[in-house]
């Protein structure tokens, strides 16, 4: 692999990311599965970097998951999105940042569609006015939340308490990066680094001291597939695609996986558990799995957040082996506690994959 070749491509796909004043919208899936990540994101941006990120309680889902499951027609999804944009305008913002990749892909696509088909935009404006009495304002800049962390990756590195380095060996940690399909596969120019060699996560890994692993199925989808996961009868598809990725990355012995999509970290984490329970196979060292993180979780660990404040106890694959390698201190007894140290019943442990 020739690193300079990739660098050349990355330099062709640099997008402009404004410095400050963002209208922030949340992700349905990440709020439920990775609440700690969104908390960490806003804390890093607002309190560590001192930036203005505004959120209104009136914003909702973009409808993306439902739209991609065909539960919503295209115009419904577009009008919900138009409403989100209208909220941004009403609060005086021009820069729009979303936590979800499905949303990011749709926002990008919708803006492109409206550019190509102005009659469609007119129609959606009318729908929005009729149903909500709101006026559409289109954002000047659209970013995914990982773009923001990418932009400030070196500032984060400067404040780092821990680096992505194995403290036992002094070697960089071996990190697999997984980019959500809808980040740049549809519109390569809208993603940092393009579609074939996205740099948005690789850039963070580089800055924070890790080594990026490139393996044959790097670009393959995690297998979410919307209806292919949401309907129980279809889940073999979802699981088989994750399985394919793990089989492909296994020889590289990755220490961790970092993702920027809502669904991917959940699927890559949970399918490891199901694969282990069904077939006995695990992909990490000593019967553990390979821990899968969101980029905020990794940024949080680098900045010295407590792993249980980041919500790592919600993962199924144990994160402790990685925390040990990074030298992150944690209290085992606090892992499964509730608010204010409330003692909760500890979860059961799986049969075939080691957990802590």
């Amino acid at each position: 692999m020739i690193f300079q070749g990739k660098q050349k491509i990355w330099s062709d796909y640099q997008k402009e990311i404004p410095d400050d004043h963002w209208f922030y919208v949340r992700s349905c899936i990440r709020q439920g599965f990775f609440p700690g990540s969104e908390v960490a994101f806003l804390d890093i941006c607002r309190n560590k970097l001192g930036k203005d990120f505004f959120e209104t309680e009136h914003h909702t889902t973009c409808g993306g998951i439902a739209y991609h499951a065909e539960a919503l027609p295209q115009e419904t999804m577009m009008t919900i999105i138009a409403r989100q944009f209208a909220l941004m305008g009403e609060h005086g913002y021009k820069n729009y940042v979303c936590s979800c990749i499905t949303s990011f892909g749709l926002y990008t696509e919708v803006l492109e569609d409206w550019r190509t088909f102005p009659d469609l935009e007119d129609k959606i404006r009318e729908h929005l006015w009729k149903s909500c009495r709101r006026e559409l304002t289109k954002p000047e800049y659209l970013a995914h939340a990982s773009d923001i962390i990418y932009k400030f990756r070196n500032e984060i590195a400067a404040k780092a308490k821990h680096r992505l380095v194995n403290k036992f060996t002094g070697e960089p940690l071996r990190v697999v990066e997984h980019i959500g399909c809808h980040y740049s596969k549809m519109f390569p120019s809208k993603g940092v680094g393009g579609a074939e060699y996205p740099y948005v996560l690789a850039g963070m890994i580089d800055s924070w001291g890790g080594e990026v692993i490139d393996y044959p199925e790097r670009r393959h989808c995690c297998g979410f597939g919307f209806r292919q996961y949401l309907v129980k009868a279809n889940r073999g598809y979802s699981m088989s695609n994750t399985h394919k990725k793990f089989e492909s990355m296994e020889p590289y012995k990755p220490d961790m996986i970092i993702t920027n999509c809502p669904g991917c970290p959940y699927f890559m984490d949970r399918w490891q558990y199901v694969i282990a329970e069904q077939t006995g196979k695990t992909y990490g060292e000593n019967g553990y799995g390979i821990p899968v993180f969101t980029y905020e979780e990794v940024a949080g660990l680098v900045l010295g957040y407590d792993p249980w404040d980041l919500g790592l106890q919600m993962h199924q694959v144990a994160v402790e082996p990685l925390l040990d390698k990074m030298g992150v201190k944690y209290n085992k007894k606090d892992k499964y506690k509730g608010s204010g140290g409330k003692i909760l019943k500890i979860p059961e442990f799986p049969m075939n994959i080691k957990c802590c």
Partner: protein
Amino acid sequence: MKRNVLIIGGGPAGMEAARRIRDYGHTPILIEKESRLGGHLAKWHKLFPEGESTEELLTSLTADMEGINYFTDTNIVSINKLKNLYVAIFSNGISVQADAILFATGFSMFPAEKKEEYGYGIYNHVITNADLEHFFNTGKDPRIKEPKVIGFVHCVGSRDEKAGNRQCSKVCCATALKQACEMKELYPDATIYCFYMDLRMFGRKYEDLYLNAQRKYGILFVRGRVSEVSEDIDGRLVVKAEDTLVGKPIRITMDLLVLMAGMSPCVENPKIASMTGVHIGEDGFFMPRDLLYRSVESHSKGIFFAGAATGPKTIPETLNEARAAAMAIDHYFKQKA
């Protein structure tokens, strides 16, 4: 009366035209941007359909250069029209008055790194057709190491709207088969695959080349465009396509992948066109007055075309066009007189 003809481009079209124009009794002035004549041809080793030697062809083309003024390492700085004359200034400071100009600017190789998914310049064992010819010429390329499985990818940057090249480059199918057979001669134990969309074997003896590739060399064909290439932990290439004739995805691990980079319009076309007002088609190649009957004439008086400047062509087509252009130029002068 002797007249000056400026020929831009010292590849096969320019060289052949220069001699013919001289033979008609005119004065050819040929400029070439590279340091030697021959264009892309000079970098090739052998030619299809029958493995003809490039060196021999080049020797024939350069054997008789008497009376031809040529400048290598030279670019056009400007061209201005003065009544019936063109005044051209070269990058070496020389300026000439020309009664006619022949654009023999040829093509630019499609930059294979633009097809990012194939990893040229990123994966260690991905090369282009031009790299392979260089290897045949020199025997040296660190990327080629006793390959056991070799793939040829047709249509790299050809028939590809996303890459900005919609046209078929015409010569790659035959070149791929020629190169595949040559590799089989070098590495008889290797398994060799060609990934194609349509095998365009349109010329005399080309179908024989195909038959030979199958029957004599055992080259295997997969109808499907390569979709993605990656590198595995041993540094080998994992190549994915659909075997469209079976209707299933296919995955093959390889030691060498050769990308058949196609012909793009010469990158200098827009600059030269803006100096002279000749037309450029939406595909980026020069537009002759028409594509059938006046294929070597431009829309501007006294400006002519030959070779791949007006679209992908084979060597014999290029040479014939050069002769036709020389004849058209002579005819133009006679009419003028």
